[in-house]
């Protein structure tokens, strides 16, 4: 686990694009304590994006990529939608195949990597919109959980189909008037976090991406639990400011408003007993490591 794998042959260094030189010299590959605080000081694993200015999906992408515990051995799977505009700019391997089949792709991928690299950690992270996760791909989302596939599913919940221009989605609120829901959506927002819990996910969180430290925590937990215990699910509110009529500076406030305790994106978390025990062990190890480092520093001083 180091930057070794992205080293450039010295003869070619000069002719490589500057972004890549940067990636080799200043990215956080191989840095165990990488996190959102590296943003702005190191080379990020996302170069640029072609989302609408101020789209909260772009913030979410940056935080998630900064939080992956092991990006040098992580493969991401996306789906068609606004997120797929971003993936070509991401410096971890990622797959876009069809609309809605992301959890099936990830199932095959994770299994292939397990067959090919026994004893090595290879993380798989799915990241797709709510249409992909909850509507067209719901069958495959659920079945991957039923089968206890060991990867993390992240849904960017913007409560509609953004990429095709604002049609009704399963995660849309009841009553919302949208394209293809001309008299307002007639059924409730699908309760996927609860379904995820019932379907066998071991770590489920619903929140907004207004707080980077929170995103970092839940992403790391989700990836660690998926690695060792079983499937995990994050549902992150990333409002489509375009379709709800907000301007580029208003995305953050929209998230803050909707995460209040009585609102629909109030923080919610479910952790299975197995995951609880595992996370506690992890925290204890982390504590031990920190204490040892402190002691060492004190001795050296």
């Amino acid at each position, binding site marked *: 686990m180091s930057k070794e794998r992205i080293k450039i042959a010295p003869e070619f260094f000069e002719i490589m694009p500057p972004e890549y030189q940067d990636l080799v010299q200043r990215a956080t590959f191989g840095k165990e304590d990488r996190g959102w605080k590296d943003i702005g000081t190191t080379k990020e694993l996302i170069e640029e994006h072609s989302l609408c200015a101020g789209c909260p999906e772009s913030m979410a992408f940056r935080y998630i990529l900064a939080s992956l515990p092991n990006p040098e051995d992580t493969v991401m799977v996306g789906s068609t939608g606004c997120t797929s505009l971003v993936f070509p700019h*991401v410096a*971890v391997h990622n797959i*876009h195949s069809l609309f809605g*089949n992301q959890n099936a792709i990830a199932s*095959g991928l994770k299994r*292939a990597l397990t*067959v*090919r690299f026994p004893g090595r950690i290879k993380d798989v992270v799915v990241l797709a919109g709510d249409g992909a996760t909850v509507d067209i791909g719901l069958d495959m989302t659920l*079945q991957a959980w039923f089968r206890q596939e060991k990867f993390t599913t992240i849904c960017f919940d913007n409560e509609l189909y953004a990429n095709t221009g604002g049609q009704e989605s399963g995660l849309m609120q009841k009553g919302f008037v949208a394209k293809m829901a001309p008299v307002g959506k007639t059924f409730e927002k699908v309760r996927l976090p609860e379904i995820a819990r019932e379907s066998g996910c071991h770590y489920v969180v619903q929140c907004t991406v207004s707080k980077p430290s929170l995103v970092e925590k839940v992403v790391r937990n989700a990836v660690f639990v998926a690695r060792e215990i079983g499937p995990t699910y994050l549902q992150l509110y990333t409002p489509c400011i375009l379709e709800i009529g907000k301007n580029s500076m208003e995305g953050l406030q929209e998230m803050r408003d909707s995460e209040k305790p009585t609102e629909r994106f109030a923080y919610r978390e479910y952790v299975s007993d197995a995951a609880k025990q595992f996370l506690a062990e992890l925290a204890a190890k982390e504590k031990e490591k920190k204490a040892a480092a402190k002691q060492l520093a004190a001795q050296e001083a």
Partner: protein
Amino acid sequence: MAEGKSVIGTQNKKGQTYTDPWYMLHEAPRTPSFFTGSEVIKEAIRRASCDVMIAYPITPQSEAAALIGELFAEGYVGDYFRGESEFAVMSECAGAAFGGARVFTTTAGPGTMRAMENFPMWAGARLPIQMIVTCRGINSPLSIQPDTLEISYLLNTGMLVWHAETAQDFFDWILKGYMVAEEPDVHLPLALCCDGFFVTHTKDVVHLTPADMCLPPYDPYRSPVPCMDMECPPVRMMRDPFVMKSNYISYATHASWQQEVWAAVERSRKHTIHWLNGLIDAENTDADILIVTSGTAVSQGREAIRLLEDEGVRCGLVKVKTLRPWPGDEIREATKHAKHIFVPEFNVTGWLAKEIRATIPNSDRVHAGPHVCGGMTMPPEIIVSEIKTALGMRAMSLAGRGS
């Protein structure tokens, strides 16, 4: 696989020896065995060093898929599971192939149709997955009987499409299929089709290679596009280049990629000729009358030719082995002398006859038919009768037979 190191001669965890594929398939001793087509699929996969097999039941392929499950339990296949539908299975296969695995799956009829969105994606993503298609009816009313209509839908996906006549073809072509599909200049999925039941559920003598020999494993780093395992540098890396509706360059990118996929189909030609000993087999092509067809219709054609011979009518035969790449030159050459070309098919639309007509000069020589569909068998007498009627000879009325 470590660079430059050959695994040939070493053993896998089941004690099989990785064997030079040419030696294994052309020179190694063979044992005659009496097997169904489904059992033959299992025997081929036993020797194929497959990493991942994913299955969903649909008649008549279920048995083959279940038998490969047994192979997994015995430890011959890296991973195996039942997916949630054919669409999902083909996506799961794609995921495994993206991750660098040698992948196998099987389907039939409505399963093929449900999975259809995946096939051009497989080809576009250059995933050398092998899929056995054990053809059956696809239209309503529901039928589980053999009917090759589904093959016509596969022809324009960018996949390689081969059509096996017998269980022996199946055994050899599954193994040879990986050799062709995984060539760096090809690297495309392969649909290896057969006519369900006629091949899958009948027993035949099949000559098998030794069970303790297997193909060398797939090397994903010979792929012309990067393997998704983070073992090579992550340079903002996506499979495949994503093209959006923005400008002329992106249109051009997509267009050139599509053309590259079809160019790869063409490039498979030389490898296929090498491994299958030609894209067609031809007999007596100097005859005025030719039967040109694929799949089990070839066997029925052979019988019809025997019956015609008894009546003093000489008729040649062309067995079309691969549909993609399409053996246009070969068929043109083989049909050069023919005055009448008959194309018996197990489907209602006659897609093979259309392909042949589009390929050869003086295409009114092509008699599309006979066609049987919906799972009907094709008695050789029907072919004989079609030929004799077209030639203005008196044909026996089949309806009146035995009365």
